[in-house]
């Protein structure tokens, strides 16, 4: 936003005509920074600064800038609006209002912000005056270094050893492929189980009632449900079973298909 004010200077002659105030916006870091600079020019301790006077100076500056038809960044205008409001609050008698801060409280808040920013600006220049490494103080120019010796440690488990041997062994030999029997329930298993019931399911009965009792674990149970459902579709297709499900995810019911019932 500073480029708006490039090389712009203005003289602000105080009401008492003694202090000549030079405002150079080039290089200001925003309205608070500018207010802080105006405050410094009052040459009093920030603790005793007259916020009212500061607000007036700021507003005067904005007014002058407007006269010169300078484009002013929004931040500065918002600050001007706020300061104008603050000024009115400071000048007018306070109304009883619990929700809003009083004029003096608002002025205190601004004074605090100015003091805090000033403190940080000073702190910044103090930090930059500390002796700096590589500028004022130096570290060892030619550190010999600490030599790091890496000793490799190889870890191999018997399992890895045997696995390597096994992998290698099976690479060369053409063993017949043995498929381990699975504990999963096949569609054939389900068909076998459902067939005896065919023609005997007179009323709608839940799919679950047709499942074997001794189910070992969840995965197997799921496979049984899936296989039984697949088998029931098969049976329905061949006209031996009717299936009903009223809604998605709701229970599935079977019933024997009775001849000529339709």
């Amino acid at each position: 936003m500073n480029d708006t004010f490039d090389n712009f200077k203005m003289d602000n002659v105080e009401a008492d005509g003694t202090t000549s105030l030079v405002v150079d916006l080039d290089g200001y870091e925003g309205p608070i920074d500018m207010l802080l600079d105006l405050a410094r020019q009052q040459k009093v301790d920030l603790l005793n600064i007259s916020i009212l006077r500061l607000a007036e100076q700021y507003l005067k500056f904005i007014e002058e800038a407007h006269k010169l038809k300078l484009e002013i960044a929004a931040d500065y205008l918002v600050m001007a609006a706020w300061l104008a409001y603050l000024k009115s609050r400071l000048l007018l008698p306070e109304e009883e209002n619990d929700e809003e801060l009083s004029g003096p409280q608002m002025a205190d808040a601004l004074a605090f912000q100015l003091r805090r920013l000033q403190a940080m600006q000073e702190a910044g220049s103090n930090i930059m005056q500390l002796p700096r490494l590589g500028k004022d103080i130096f570290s060892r120019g030619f550190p010999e270094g600490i030599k790091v010796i890496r000793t490799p440690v190889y870890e191999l488990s018997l399992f890895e050893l045997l696995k390597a041997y096994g992998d290698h062994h099976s690479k060369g030999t053409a063993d017949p492929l043995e498929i381990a029997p699975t504990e999963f329930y096949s569609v054939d298993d389900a068909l076998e189980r459902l067939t005896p019931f065919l023609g005997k399911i007179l009323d709608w009965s839940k799919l679950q009632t047709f499942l074997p009792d001794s189910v070992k674990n969840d995965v197997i149970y799921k496979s049984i449900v899936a296989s039984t459902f697949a088998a029931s579709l098969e049976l329905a297709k061949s006209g031996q079973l009717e299936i009903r499900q009223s809604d998605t995810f709701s229970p599935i019911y079977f019933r024997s298909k009775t001849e000529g019932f339709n």
Partner: protein
Amino acid sequence: MSEYLSALRITEAILFAAPEPMTEAALAERIPSNVSISLVLGELSKNYADRGVNLKAVGGRWAFRTAPDLASFLEIEIKVNRKLSRAAVETLAIIGYHQPITRGEIEEIRGVSLSRGTLDLLLELEWIRPVGKRKTPGRPVTWGTSQKFLENFNLNDIKDLPGTDELKAAGLLDKRPTSSIFGEVALKIEEENTERVSDGI
């Protein structure tokens, strides 16, 4: 040679040879176990206090450094130090004294939105680092100074920053937003700032 003397020599040699400052723990590992490393470091820093080279704790680690008063004799080559902008110096100070602090809080204190390159530059210098996230909506990143910052400015601890106690006593290390007191107008400023910030990203 006594074990204590031996520990002194070893510590001295390691600190001379190490390219980076070393922690007490790392040094303690290398000296006879019945010798106190703090005692050794205490004696060494006393030995070197008046010499051309001093033993210093920087950022909680130990290193030899040339004595600060000899700066003018050591300008072997003219280093071109990039001059930091006012905004960068101010931001660095704010982060140094108020850490952990979010970008938004820095902007509150400075009363202006941070321009694009400021944090980037400090980050590039490795003087600041993200230290966490504020548990507020949006979970903004909080910033703090780095080990390298302490080493660069020859500080042992962030508490050694000049004037910390005075600033604290004066209540100036309070990062509460003054804008909350500014009322609606301030809210408007904030919104605009926020927009500008997000535009800039």
